[in-house]
């Protein structure tokens, strides 16, 4: 299952590197290649969940930079979605690492297509949103910002509460 994870993350990183080189920004391109190396090292040797999350955050930062430097939004979006899918598969692969190869393959087959569908849906949603023009006033911006913070708080609270219940048990 790690092969699939590596495939998606490597493809996404290469896409980011390609965007960087295409824009003539060698630092961004080199950053994409460093990301690729990081994903290969994490998937093949390190098996670190925290490192993978750090790489996901770094990939997002590269994607943001690429957009600011005039990179193609769809390409950047595609790259980031691929990395997100790869990151998720990487976590699943660690969770099932104790089982046999056959079982892992069967698990991968069962979940690969729904994961791809979810990624495609996320990308489609983003592409659709790029077609929508919303006039962002200060009030709307403030309201959306507050809503986002409240949403984050609620999410963390709900998941934290569940974890504590598990611990108490």
């Amino acid at each position, binding site marked *: 299952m790690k092969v699939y994870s590596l495939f998606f993350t490597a493809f996404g990183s290469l896409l980011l590197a390609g965007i960087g080189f295409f824009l003539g920004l060698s630092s961004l391109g080199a950053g994409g290649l460093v990301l690729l190396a990081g994903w290969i090292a994490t998937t093949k040797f390190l098996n670190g969940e925290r490192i993978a999350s750090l790489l996901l955050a770094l990939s997002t930062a590269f994607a943001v930079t690429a957009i600011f430097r005039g990179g193609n939004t769809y390409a950047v979006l595609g790259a980031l979605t691929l990395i997100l899918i790869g990151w998720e598969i990487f976590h699943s692969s660690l969770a099932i690492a104790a089982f046999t190869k056959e079982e892992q393959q069967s698990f991968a087959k069962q979940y690969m297509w729904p*994961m791809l569908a979810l990624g495609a849906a996320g990308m489609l949603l983003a592409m659709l*949103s790029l077609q929508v023009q919303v006039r962002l006033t200060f009030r709307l911006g403030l309201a959306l910002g507050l809503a986002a913070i409240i949403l984050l708080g609620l999410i963390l609270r709900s998941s934290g509460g*569940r974890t504590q219940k598990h611990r108490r048990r």
Partner: protein
Amino acid sequence: MPNRGKLAVTAGIAIGLIALGLILRTGQLIALSLPFVLYMMVFLLLQPSSSKPPLEIERHLSGTRIEEGGKIEVVLTVVNHGAPIPSLGLTENFPPGIEVTEGETSCLRSLGTEERITLTYTLRSARGVHQLPGVDVKIWKWLALTQQSVFLPHEDHFIALPQAEIIDDIEIRPQRTRAYAGMVRANRGGSGLDFFGCRAYTPGDDIRYINWRTYAKRGELVIDEYEQERIADVSIILDGRERMNTREGKEDTFTYSVRAAACMASHFIDQGNSVGLLIYGDYINWTYPGYGKTQRERILEALAQAKPGYKEVFSDLHSVPTRLFPSRSQLIIVSPLAGEDDVEVLGVLRARGYQIIVIIPDLLQVQLERLPDDENRDLAQKIVQLRRNFFLSTLTRIGVEVLVWNIAEPLSYPISWGLSRRGRRLG
């Protein structure tokens, strides 16, 4: 990573992108956050319930008592009494000291309602009381974004008793024996096999034992006496002091001490003697003396659970509670004795009339084999042997029988030569 961590990472990135997009008024960044937002929403929708899955576990063990290093077959069955589970990962938990030799101890598959999974495997275990605590269960729902990890407790115990070799008959000569007939020569005249002496005939004596040759010579009736054979009290002292436990790689002297103690206990119980066991180390673990198979099981169970330990008060043998041992009985001390203090204690025990056999498990050969073959090794070997010879001669002088057991060989070899009747006769 637990569900919470994954959610926190994606939520952090999504909200960061949205916030940055709003601050910089860049819609593309908000669009970039949408795959993360969708991921989070699906993640939250598929959050696992906090209730335990309705899974029933059964475990069948082929036995609950095995010999150290022996095998035990386990059949684990899990039945799902709830809704179908798209992906279920089962992993059996094992404490240290257990090795799986055959079969599967984990599986990952879907499980329908009332469907069952059966895992069959064989375990090999080290000495000790082992507990199989339960099963780790992981459940993935649709998309496998969230994982429910539950530990389902289901305890089963089994005991791995120490190996007890079959050994030659050991000759012991305690000063005091019990009244019942046994295998230990009692140093008293009566009925037996070995000639003991003669005495004047007294009315009531069996005429079969009259020595007719003496009667022919002297005209006096003299009775031949044979040495009585009775049962004896045997106390085994297992030295469990951590500082005495020498380790070399995976080998340690305590494991062999336990085996030697098990071997001695089995042997003397089989001969009908009353046997007690004292494990001296972390605390005083005393198994009261007794006879028969039940006593053997009691002693083997105590030995199965024995561990070396350290307590300052038991750092030398001065605290051995001698009042537990029947007076002038036979003591068998299994210990890699090392200190002068120990010799002093053995001298005191001898002075009180105890007959003592000391069995010393010896790791020296194993240690030497692992050293490079050079002058230093030879010198080290000579120094160790000189020191040991001096130590053993001191013990022999005070009347203690010493048996050094090279652990690379079976225990029966040195016993055959050193402690058995045949070995003693051969010198």
